């Protein structure tokens, strides 16, 4: 067995690989300006630091102060259709913590005016935050499902092209993710040990999540449901724990209210009400769209097979007679965010779906390792890995270039499916665990390798020709 220090080194290597992938061409891809929210978030922080007045882009009514301006940061008017930007102040659409991080970082790099908040500066803290998310996923999986699961989840989340690209964008969801993961880690530790400091840490992480965006309330919902699951009912102990949690988390969240009161509570609540009347652009097909098509922005689609198969796998957990506590936690997290997503839903911007992805990958990695022990589940794992492999190959090799290899695919996949269904039906044949692990890891490793090849192909030209 590997020593813990070696295991830690392996996980650090995965985190470094993730950082490297996120850092490569980060200021060019995704194209700066395709989401002006990236700038707006940073302008809120920069203007707060410089003038004490949050100024940003808003589409909401009820703002009394509005100005239309051309701010040609990163020269985005050169390649993107450019209306003047509608700037409002005091900007209260969301809490300002993300802006303070990215705008604050830009300030330390010499940014003093809005045009200075170039992608080169403002995306750097986000890259670090999204790499921390990779590390937290691995920690969560290691603590709850074992080391192999940590490697699987880290490699998928660290190298999946859509997740890598999304992890460069200055969107609040990228900051909510590590807070949500921390809450999951702390709550799972609290339930294991019943030590109060884990509940306190979960509450602090939850509070901080809401300072990035109000959808950070997902952490509150998650803790509520997790404790309910643990106590199996609304018991006295449940209320004791949950109120203790609330008394720690709510003061952190209330900092947004205190901040808003500096600019007038009437204005704060007017904008709050405007937020609640947003256009419900995700529509009734929201959940179906979440599964079948993944986006970076509103109009930039980059469907990601790892996420689709993770959704498929997560549905199988509904069918289980008994779900172990360990897997209930990510499952509850997934449903918690689904509730928040449907409830808060406005336009179908890609970033609203970002927080689903780490949880889905956690569920998939748990499925991966448990499949090695269960015959029927192993067959489903192999089918999923073949789906991933097939899609990843098709991204790299065109259909005509694939033809010389088609016979291997035709016979290879048919053979695996045929053998698999016999194995599935008889269900008595024992396959050596090491053989199962080897088959799964070969398919998995090749899929991860193809993730890297595809990421390596994504440059500016590829983006304009294939993605934008």
């Amino acid at each position, binding site marked *: 067995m590997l020593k813990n220090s070696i295991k830690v080194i392996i996980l650090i290597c995965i985190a470094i690989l993730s950082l490297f992938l996120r850092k490569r061409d980060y200021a060019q891809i995704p194209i700066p300006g395709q989401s002006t929210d990236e700038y707006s978030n940073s302008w809120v922080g920069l203007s707060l630091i410089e003038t004490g007045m949050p100024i940003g882009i808003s589409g909401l009514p009820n703002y009394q102060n509005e100005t239309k301006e051309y701010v040609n940061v990163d020269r985005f008017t050169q390649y993107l259709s450019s209306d003047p930007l509608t700037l409002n102040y005091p900007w209260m659409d969301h809490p300002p913590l993300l802006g303070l991080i990215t705008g604050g970082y830009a300030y330390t790099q010499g940014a003093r005016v809005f045009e200075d908040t170039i992608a080169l500066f403002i995306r750097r803290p986000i890259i670090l935050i999204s790499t921390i998310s990779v590390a937290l996923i691995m920690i969560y999986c290691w603590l709850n499902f074992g080391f192999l699961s940590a490697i699987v989840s880290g490699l998928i989340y660290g190298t999946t092209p859509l997740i890598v690209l999304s992890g460069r964008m200055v969107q609040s969801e990228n900051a909510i993710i590590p807070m949500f993961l921390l809450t999951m880690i702390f709550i799972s530790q609290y339930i294991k040990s019943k030590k109060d400091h884990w509940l306190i840490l979960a509450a602090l992480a939850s509070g901080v999540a809401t300072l990035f965006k109000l959808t950070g309330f997902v952490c509150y919902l998650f803790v509520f449901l997790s404790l309910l699951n643990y106590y199996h009912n609304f018991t006295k102990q449940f209320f004791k724990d949950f109120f203790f949690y609330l008394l720690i988390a709510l003061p952190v969240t209330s900092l947004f209210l205190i901040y808003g009161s*500096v600019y007038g509570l009437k204005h704060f609540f007017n904008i709050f009400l405007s937020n609640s009347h947003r256009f419900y652009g995700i529509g009734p097909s929201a959940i179906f769209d979440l599964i079948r098509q993944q986006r970076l922005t509103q109009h930039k689609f980059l469907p990601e097979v790892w996420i689709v198969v993770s959704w498929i796998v997560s549905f199988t957990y509904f069918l289980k007679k008994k779900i172990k506590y360990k897997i209930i936690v990510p499952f509850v997290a997934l449903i918690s965010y689904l509730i928040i997503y449907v409830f808060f839903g406005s336009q179908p911007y890609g970033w609203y779906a970002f927080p689903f992805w780490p949880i889905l990958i956690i569920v998939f990695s748990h499925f991966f390792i448990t499949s090695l022990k269960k015959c029927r589940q192993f067959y489903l794992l192999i089918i999923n890995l073949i789906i991933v492999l097939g899609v990843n190959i098709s991204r790299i090799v065109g259909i005509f270039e694939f033809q010389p290899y088609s016979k291997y695919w035709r016979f290879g996949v048919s053979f695996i499916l045929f053998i698999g269904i016999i194995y599935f039906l008889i269900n008595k044949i024992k396959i050596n665990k090491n053989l199962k692990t080897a088959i799964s890891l070969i398919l998995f490793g090749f899929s991860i390798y193809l993730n890297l090849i595809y990421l390596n192909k994504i440059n500016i030209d590829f983006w304009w020709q294939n993605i934008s």
Partner: protein
Amino acid sequence: MNRQKFLLVYLSIFTLIGFLIFFGLRTHKNKNFSPEKLSYLTDTVSKFRDKTDDLCKYKILGDPQVGDQYVKINFWCTDSRSSRSTLALIAIPNPTIDGIFSEYSRIINFDKDLISQQKWVCFYNDKEISNKDIFEKILPTSTINCYQDKNLRGYVEK
């Protein structure tokens, strides 16, 4: 852990933090925010952006969604290159020909005087712009065409 004791200390600290944020931010805002500071933040050209002397290099792409409240401004170079832009009038602080040149040069980041120094010939709705026209109020849906060489005009129109 004694939860009550912890909450007492924690909530006391948070009350203090809340007061500090409220009064600190209010003082900061009252001291530092002004309409001039707002204009400085939004209108100042970045020191990180290149200044160009090639007026056909950069443009403002697309048609703004402002109905008929726009002005087109085009620069035509002798080497067949051009820069064609549309500006929304709503974002122009001084809606005159001079105001358009000022705002356009700020957005693109070139020295406005280059237009005269490089001897560009400009037309406002097909009428050559003279010094006395420069402060004329611009009409919506107008077009300003600037040619590096006056002879280009006939060529471009063809």
